[in-house]
């Protein structure tokens, strides 16, 4: 064998982000990006310890109802209105390995497409029993799961008649701060997905398809809640030479 046989540490640098796969900062059809997109080239650099490390949160953080958006804001004995759904999946790295201990924080509009936020102007009704936030932490196999209602689509001031597809916002912490990611999950079959300027900021159709959760009848609970499956991929670490050693070394 030739070449560099120096091993990377176990928690080595992350693979560079694929900027042709990720949405560009400037996507003019999404008007808010016009004044908020850096115009100078980014400074590209390998990870240092400042990026390889990151905060990790323990399961003790979680309250009993943190992963149940139907009940975590509801009055005692009541529940949020809407289509009951289970959202579940795995958090993987780019090598396909599960990532345990990932904190996922989610937020969404209610079943009518209305957010509980002071800046929200849409006339759809608030649901007194729905706050719109939840969180969970992946297990040893990288799995997560939460219960919610399917969010409604809603109009937003961008083009003259733009409607966001139904979506759930996801925020994720991996093991290093360089993996920090916020994305959105869409729902299989929603015709608004392909019309949305925010979705279309993503240049590659396959990258969009990766954000669409599929109806999962296997994990649907009969007479209770439909399941949607949504896997999320975080940046992977560089491979180590260890995996390429000759046999017997």
């Amino acid at each position: 064998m030739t070449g560099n046989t120096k091993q990377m540490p176990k928690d080595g640098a992350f693979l560079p982000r694929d900027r042709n796969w990720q949405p560009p900062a400037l996507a003019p059809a999404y008007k808010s990006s016009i004044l908020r997109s850096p115009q100078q080239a980014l400074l590209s650099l390998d990870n240092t310890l400042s990026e390889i490390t990151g905060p990790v949160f323990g399961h003790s953080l979680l309250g009993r109802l943190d992963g149940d958006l139907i009940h975590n804001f509801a009055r005692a004995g009541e529940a949020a209105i809407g289509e009951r759904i289970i959202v579940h999946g795995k958090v993987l790295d780019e090598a396909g390995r599960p990532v345990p201990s990932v904190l996922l924080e989610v937020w969404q509009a209610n079943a009518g497409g209305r957010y509980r936020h002071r800046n929200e102007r849409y006339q759809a009704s608030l649901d007194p029993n729905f706050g719109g936030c939840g969180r969970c932490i992946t297990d040893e196999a990288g799995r997560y799961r939460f219960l919610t209602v399917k969010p409604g689509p809603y109009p937003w001031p961008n083009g003259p008649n733009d409607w966001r597809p139904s979506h759930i916002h996801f925020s994720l912490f991996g093991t290093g701060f360089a993996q920090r990611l916020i994305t959105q999950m869409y729902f299989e079959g929603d015709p608004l997905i392909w019309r949305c300027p925010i979705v279309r900021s993503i240049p590659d159709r396959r990258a969009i398809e990766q954000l669409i959760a599929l109806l999962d009848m296997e994990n649907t609970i009969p007479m209770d809640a439909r399941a949607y499956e949504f896997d999320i991929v975080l940046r992977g670490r560089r491979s180590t030479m260890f995996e390429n050693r000759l046999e017997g070394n």
Partner: protein
Amino acid sequence: MAEDARRLKESASQTAGPYVHIGLMPNFAGIGGVYDSDLGSAMVNDRTLGERITVTGVIVDGAGAPLKDALIEIWQADAAGLYNSPAETRGAADPNFTGWGRCASHAETGAFIFRTIKPGRVPFIDGRPMAPHITFWIVARGINIGLQTRMYFADEMAANDADPLLLRIESRHRIRTLIAPREGDTYRFDIHLQGDRETVFLDI
């Protein structure tokens, strides 16, 4: 040959949108009773080691207006230069310092504020010491993928002059976009998304 480390592609980022506070700072957003407190609101306690400092600033858009709906996270080493992270292999960081903070821009002024400590020095990839710095990560409506940058300290000029990251900035006049001036115990770090003073953002 190296294995193909990329069997999957990183999920595409999407904007945090205007209602990011619902998910990440629900108490700030007026959604009480779900979580006891907003995560990342306290970085230090009475026993945290190191010099207490305040870091404040605004994020300015291309029209010169401060962002009032942004969310900022910071990540930094403790006073000894160690990160409070399982991925830290050089030693145990100060257990009374999280190293991680989260703050929303003020709804009227756009100001963010972190009460923290001045970090120690952390080695670069090749072992050279980096100047003390704080990593910033910014999301908001109109930002399609989180913006990452670093704040350095104006009272560390000797260390800044030898910092491996700052030395990589080709346009030398842009280095000052990453250096926060000090007044008392407060460092002022304004972040410009565009224009003559555009902050150097990182692809790291």
